């Protein structure tokens, strides 16, 4: 059965994050229910960095966005920090390259105010027939 990025990369990330106390989305949701973790493509999304072209191998870059409700600044930041640490712990497999966690920022989705922070993640993927 051929591999797909949806199943073997985004799905695997979602599975790895299953232990974190949050709603996990492996694509952009219409209305996330907080606390939430959203796995979305980063830019550049796919990098070709190995030799040869008989097999397609790419480095995929993702943004793991951690979202918490923003009611009280101090509590929201604490919740976000705890969620980020949980995410970093859940993604401890050697195949995941975690580089940085972006500064928290306030975002409005619909009528909900969220405190969000982006985690940069890279993973290598090989397409098999």
């Amino acid at each position: 059965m051929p591999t797909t990025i949806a199943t073997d990369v985004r799905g695997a990330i979602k599975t790895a994050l299953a232990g974190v106390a949050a709603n996990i989305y492996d694509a952009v949701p219409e209305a996330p229910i907080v606390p939430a973790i959203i796995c979305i493509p980063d830019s550049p999304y796919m990098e070709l960095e190995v030799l040869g072209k008989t097999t397609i191998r790419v480095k995929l870059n993702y943004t793991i966005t951690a979202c918490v409700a923003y009611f009280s600044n101090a509590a929201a930041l604490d919740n976000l920090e705890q969620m980020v640490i949980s995410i970093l712990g859940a993604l401890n497999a050697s195949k995941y390259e975690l580089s940085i966690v972006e500064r928290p920022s306030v975002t409005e989705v619909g009528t909900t105010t969220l405190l969000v922070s982006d985690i940069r993640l890279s993973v290598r993927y090989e397409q098999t027939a």
Partner: protein
Amino acid sequence: MPTTVITGRDVTFTLDSASYDAQATSAVLSCETIIETYQTLDGRAYKSVDKQWTFTIELLQDWGAASSLFEAMWTDAEAAPNTALTVAFTAVTGAAFSFTVLPIFPTAGGAAPGALTDTWTMTVIGTPTETFS
């Protein structure tokens, strides 16, 4: 004639019959030619006296993986440091080179948080045999 452009994705090679495409990010076959210059009474004279070929590859470390290339190279360097390994290097379809290199010990480890990489600079024994078609 039309412009010809080949890229790193055209490059393939096998080392000791193992394909390294999946791990290698760069592969370069190069030669340092030693040319001596003599200042004669008639002016400068040049003589090519020696050549040393080198095969340099950059790789992603794969310690611990099934059929690890790094572990295979370590074993070769430890058990048979003077036994040459055969390399078949294709720059692009129609330009292939075959030669032998001596094994070297790969590096283990690196800096956080990126992928661990290594550069193998291997001395080529003699001169590569080219096949242009």
